[in-house]
């Protein structure tokens, strides 16, 4: 669900654009580490230098994987009742390549779509990146990270696909509501049901696709191992909680928003809600910033000891 321009209020898109910058920087930097040293491998000074010398061999891989996302979205899955769904791919990429790499690939996809294919707004790019490339991917990876070993593995992958799509959609809805786009109760209900169905479809497709990939080469799917565990859990939970709180708030009082909309900006109720939403986004931003900082320090310390 790409938000076009013209829907989000300037305060919302500006905040989210600013918030997306450190998040993307974090993902890109982390991706650099992940592909060369999968999951927690201790790197020594020599290896570090060798990695720098190897340069950016991951860049072709990330680019082609972005093209893979487009291609995979073209494949139709019959989901009964004569309708068909398709993969979104955030959770699948996160499980196969690791969350940071997946977030980078999805960011590249979204930038290309916004500027070259006019799919999703240019000003709303920060919002779309945070919804789908950051929150969607991290939330999709979280269940796999927690329960991705042993008997619960398939369930974890399914849950990852489900959560990934649902969190993205909830965040998009929250942003639209915060911007004052009216959402009558019935529309909210219908879209909620649609999100649920989409989530279930994405979960089922993700499980089937991961199995198909593993059948060809088990090495292509990363084993679930802790990678900066606590930070990721905190970030993903913050994103999910934020989305759910926003949705709960807005569905609790849709009429207030409705009436607020007919005379935009005037009633204090609307302002309250906007402030609340922005505060939530601010918390998310602070969290991401913290992660980026912490990661940078970690990296510096390692380079210093080398």
């Amino acid at each position, binding site marked *: 669900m790409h938000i076009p321009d013209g829907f989000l209020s300037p305060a919302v898109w500006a905040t989210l654009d600013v918030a997306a910058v450190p998040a993307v920087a974090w993902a890109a930097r982390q991706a650099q580490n992940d592909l060369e040293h999968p999951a927690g491998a201790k790197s020594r000074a020599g290896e570090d230098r060798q990695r720098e010398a190897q340069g950016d061999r991951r860049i072709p891989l990330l680019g*082609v994987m972005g093209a893979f996302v487009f291609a995979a979205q073209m494949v139709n899955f019959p989901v009964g009742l004569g309708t068909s769904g398709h993969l979104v791919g955030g959770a699948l990429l996160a499980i196969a390549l690791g969350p940071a790499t997946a977030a980078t*690939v999805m960011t590249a996809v979204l930038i290309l779509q916004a500027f070259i294919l006019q799919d999703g707004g240019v000003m709303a790019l920060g919002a779309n990146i945070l919804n789908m490339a950051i929150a969607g991917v991290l939330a999709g990876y979280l269940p796999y990270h927690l329960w991705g070993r042993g008997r619960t593995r398939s369930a974890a992958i399914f849950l990852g696909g489900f959560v990934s799509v649902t969190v993205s959609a909830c965040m998009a809805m929250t942003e639209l509501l915060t911007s004052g786009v009216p959402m009558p109760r019935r529309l909210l209900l219908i879209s909620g049901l649609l999100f649920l169905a989409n989530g279930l479809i994405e979960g089922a497709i993700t499980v089937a696709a991961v199995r198909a990939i593993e059948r060809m080469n088990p090495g292509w799917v990363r084993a679930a191992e802790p990678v900066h565990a606590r930070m990721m859990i905190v970030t993903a939970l913050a994103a999910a909680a934020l989305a759910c709180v926003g949705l709960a708030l807005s569905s609790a009082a849709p009429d207030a928003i409705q009436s607020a909309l007919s005379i935009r900006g005037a009633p204090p109720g609307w302002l309250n809600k906007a402030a609340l939403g922005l505060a939530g986004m601010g918390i998310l931003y602070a969290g991401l910033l913290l992660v980026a900082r912490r990661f940078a320090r970690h990296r510096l310390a390692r380079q210093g000891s080398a």
Partner: protein
Amino acid sequence: MRHAPGFQHANVEGWSRGTSPLHAVDPRAKLGALLVFLTALATTSDRVSWIHDTWIYGAYFVLLLAAIAIARLPLLPMLGRATLVLPFSTVFALATWWAGNPRGALVLAAKSFLSVLATLILAASTPWVRLLDALATLHVPRPLILVIQFLGRYLFVVTDQAAQVMLAAQSRQGASRHQRLDPCKNGARRFQAAAGAVGVLFARSWERADGIYRAMLARGFTGYYPAPAPRPFHARDAAFLSLSVAATLAVRLAL
């Protein structure tokens, strides 16, 4: 099978290789003008009146029409492509209308349509690789720009492959026309086949990336991507930028 992104994009890419005065302007200037336009559009208040709204959004539209004329782009296909956004807008516009704000509904539709049209003009008057170089001047990290370049180059290769994989799967399992006879079983089988197709695509993409990297090494790749040569920002580009910013601000502030 959904349409590959390429089918709709082919036109835009053809248009972007034109030779009009707008095509000749530096992409950075066009990007700056676009950002100013979008910001002005987004911050246009919609609290006044029908007449005011008609004037101001009409004026923005005229600005964009002028840009299309300067770029010598085909008007109707451009407008048609810009309506791609309308399904999404219509849902929310109808909701706004339903909520008792018909003017808000029209403003919403107008804003999203004009935004898409403006972005489309940039994409249709600038080759995409140069557009990405312009993004680099906005401090989009260079590795990310490089990833997008690879993505753009292999987009059609991989999506074509997806079309082939799906066609092959359909040929093997027979026409989907018979699915009604045994919906459940056949549906499950087709679901598995589609998952298999995604798996095959993943595998081929992975191998392709490996092959690309080896080919780069074979051609003397040293692990270092040369930065594009800095392009001069001519007086003409500065003139275009200031003129379009002035026109946008005039509409935004005067009307």
